[in-house]
């Protein structure tokens, strides 16, 4: 639901927000035609439009206190040019510079520094604005809420003041769950319905299980064993077909359909796990599911004799070549370093083994298909379906997010952990200003003069 008070359709204002209403307003934003306005009116219009975007959550009094007419700027220096000339070339010719040709002179002429676009640079120091700029929240207001609700730390200590002014070198971090919620697509009707269904199914299954457990305790174990013995080939085939289905779906199919298929895949994985002898209990956590699956494949491989071991390993390496990352390239000593890496290696190895196995049809499991299966599993682990989350799962970015996606250079962001470092204050450089602002130069200039007046 949009915020009706801030993103309205008549007399539109551009806000620090990713909503589609705001995108529409941004796209059609126009200042009143300057010819019919007095100078004061022009300044007023510019200032009100600019303030609606820059620090709309900050009171005017607070902002006027922050405003500074002195603007930071830098000049990019070329070491070669500095080496060629100690500056006397530029001051020669009675101060107009000695240049060989006119072209050189033109080249020397730098683009102008857009000082007036830096009017609102002091606001970028605020914690809530910085969180929005780092793309951790979908609007500055939401960023502010995160801070107030205690989801933000600065230099590892909780900070509950949205107006905290970051110093160069400060590291701020938002809880990843909140960021996923803020930037992920919301749950829709279909999602909620499926959650309901899933819950219902789970309950029924529980009841059934309870009944079944009472009836036959001894038989079940034997049956499971039988299944697992005849299964290995089937299971792989089944999984593969599911993964293939996901990969091969038409371009025309809707996202909802794909989601369904992904769910089907997940179920298939579960089924496999429940059948295998290593996991008699259905594992809930995806991480453990993943490892179980690898174990299952491992166990199968262990049955095989060791004679074609070398051969398979070679093949395994071959299979991994097309991947860009060298980390998983069959270097076992390195691979044992981290658990995740090891897991990934095991999996690829296991799948490579599987391809070698004569029980499974070689034609059915090509190298690419193994990759597909592996990729599907990895993604399922990284981006699982989890109904307890407040956003639509598997996570996907919210609509129209890409139209606002930019990260200014004065921040260094690590999105994996939702942390960023405020490197320095934003600066202007020739032809470029670091403050992200949707307004043209003229708006910036007028707003600057408006606040300059009051100094």
């Amino acid at each position: 639901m949009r915020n009706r008070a801030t993103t309205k359709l008549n007399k539109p204002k551009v806000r620090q927000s990713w909503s589609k209403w705001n995108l529409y307003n941004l796209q059609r934003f126009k200042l009143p035609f300057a010819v019919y306005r007095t100078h004061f009116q022009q300044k007023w219009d510019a200032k009100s439009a600019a303030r609606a975007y820059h620090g709309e959550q900050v009171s005017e009094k607070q902002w006027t206190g922050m405003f500074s007419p002195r603007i930071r700027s830098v000049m990019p220096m070329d070491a070669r040019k500095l080496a060629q000339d100690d500056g006397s070339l530029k001051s020669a010719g009675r101060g107009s510079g000695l240049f060989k040709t006119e072209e050189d002179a033109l080249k020397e002429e730098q683009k102008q520094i857009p000082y007036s676009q830096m009017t609102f640079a002091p606001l970028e120091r605020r914690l809530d604005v910085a969180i929005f700029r780092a793309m951790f929240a979908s609007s500055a207001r939401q960023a502010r809420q995160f801070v107030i609700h205690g989801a933000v730390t600065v230099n590892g200590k909780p900070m509950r003041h949205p107006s905290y002014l970051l110093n160069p070198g400060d590291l701020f971090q938002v809880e990843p769950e909140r960021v996923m919620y803020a930037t992920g697509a919301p749950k829709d009707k279909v999602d909620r319905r499926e959650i309901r269904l899933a819950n219902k199914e789970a309950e029924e299954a529980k009841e059934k299980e309870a009944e079944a457990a009472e009836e036959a305790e001894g038989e079940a174990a034997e049956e499971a064993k039988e299944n697992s013995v005849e299964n290995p080939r089937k299971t792989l085939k089944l999984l593969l077909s599911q993964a293939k289905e996901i990969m091969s779906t038409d371009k025309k199919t809707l996202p909802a359909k794909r989601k369904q298929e992904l769910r089907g895949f997940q179920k298939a994985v579960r089924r496999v796990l429940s059948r295998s002898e290593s996991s008699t209990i259905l594992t809930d956590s995806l991480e453990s599911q993943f490892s179980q699956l690898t174990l299952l494949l491992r166990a199968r491989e262990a049955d095989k004799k060791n004679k074609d071991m070398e051969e398979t390993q070679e093949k395994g390496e071959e299979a991994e070549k097309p991947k860009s990352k060298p980390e998983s390239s069959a270097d076992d000593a390195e691979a044992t370093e981290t658990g995740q890496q090891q897991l990934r290696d095991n999996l690829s190895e296991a799948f490579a083994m599987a391809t070698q196995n004569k029980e499974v049809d070689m034609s059915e499991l090509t190298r690419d298909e193994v990759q597909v299966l592996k990729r599907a599993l990895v993604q399922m682990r990284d981006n699982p379906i989890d109904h307890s989350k407040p956003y639509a799962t598997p996570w996907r970015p919210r609509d129209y997010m890409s139209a606002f996606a930019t990260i200014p250079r004065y921040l260094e962001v690590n999105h994996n952990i939702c942390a960023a470092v405020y490197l320095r204050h934003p600066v202007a450089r020739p032809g470029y200003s670091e403050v992200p602002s949707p307004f043209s130069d003229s708006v910036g200039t007028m707003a600057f003069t408006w606040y300059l007046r009051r100094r």
Partner: protein
Amino acid sequence: MAPRIQNQVVSNSLLPYLSPSSTTSSSTCLPRLPSTSSPSLAYRPRQSCRSLSSTVAPQTRRREEMFGWLHGPGARLKNHVPGQTNYLTSFKDKDGNLLSSTKIFPQNLMYRSESILSEDLRNEIYDRVVRQKRSVRAVSVELQVDMRRVAAVVRLVELENRMKEQDKPLALPYARAIHEMVPTSNYNKEYGSGRPHEGINDLPVHRLTNPQIFYPVSESRQFNRVDAGRVFSAAPALETSQVEENAADPYASVARITQNPGSIETVGKGDDEQQVLQPSDMRIPHPHLVAKERQNIINPNEFHKNREIYNERLAAEENATQERKLKAEKRREKQMLRVQPADSRFEFRIKDVVVSKETTGKDGRGARAPGRRYGVPSYDRKRGQVKIPTRVVV
């Protein structure tokens, strides 16, 4: 984070939102051919709820316009295109391919969406600094990344590793999506980084250079950056011998200052005392690069020798910085006495201060003297006093 697979066969096309084909198809077929592909999602203009009235409420008209735009020209913005920016200003060419642009705001020509460090480049920086033990300065020059950014990357990767160790949840799909939306500076183990990530020799514009000064100089005289700095800070011109000395060995004159910033000459007296504005050769973050270029100009053919000299100078620069840091640390330690009494939970750090005429001043209120000032009321309980912290120490 799981490896991002660049292989075409196994692209990110598993999930619906990751697939480039699905996004483009949805944008093309939805608005124009709503009946064929998905009638349920097709946009239909709303009927007025008052069936007998012929006039349309203004808000409804505006909403119609908005949804018309969102389903028409704005539809391509709904989902992102991996590896490309998808901004208001990017447009489609004749073949229907999306041409990405870096201009995110259509009206602001002065802001571009600049690239961020890719996962690989970030790991490479961390690897070079932490595992290969290279200095931040050297890594910054090699990879063309600002020194402050290098330091920040090391901090962030360190934090990420710690979070992984503690099994804390990471926002992996989110990170992947962002890296697909925003331009990135890539790094390849074989080819290195393509184009420089950012300019590393940014010279901050100094306050003293703001005023325009008319300063007549005789045409026979060479007026260079050093002279300009002295004019800006109202310092007398350099002696001829000094000028000649500087011209003879420009690197030595720069190194003298960069390796010992305390030796910068000052002008003015009392409160007006300030340092003489140094030329940009010394104020840029990597002064040694200028010396390197100069060496290349003097001996353009002796590549190896030039490189040796450069490495020596770089090492000297780093040593000087290290030494300076150590000295300052020692001085601080010398003034500090740490006592850990047996009967106390706390450590006492006793610092030496000086109470004298110089520090307290004539009226005893000098700012350099120890202690809180007398005669100044504390307004902390007054209304409107801002009490949020100004810094958080790590």
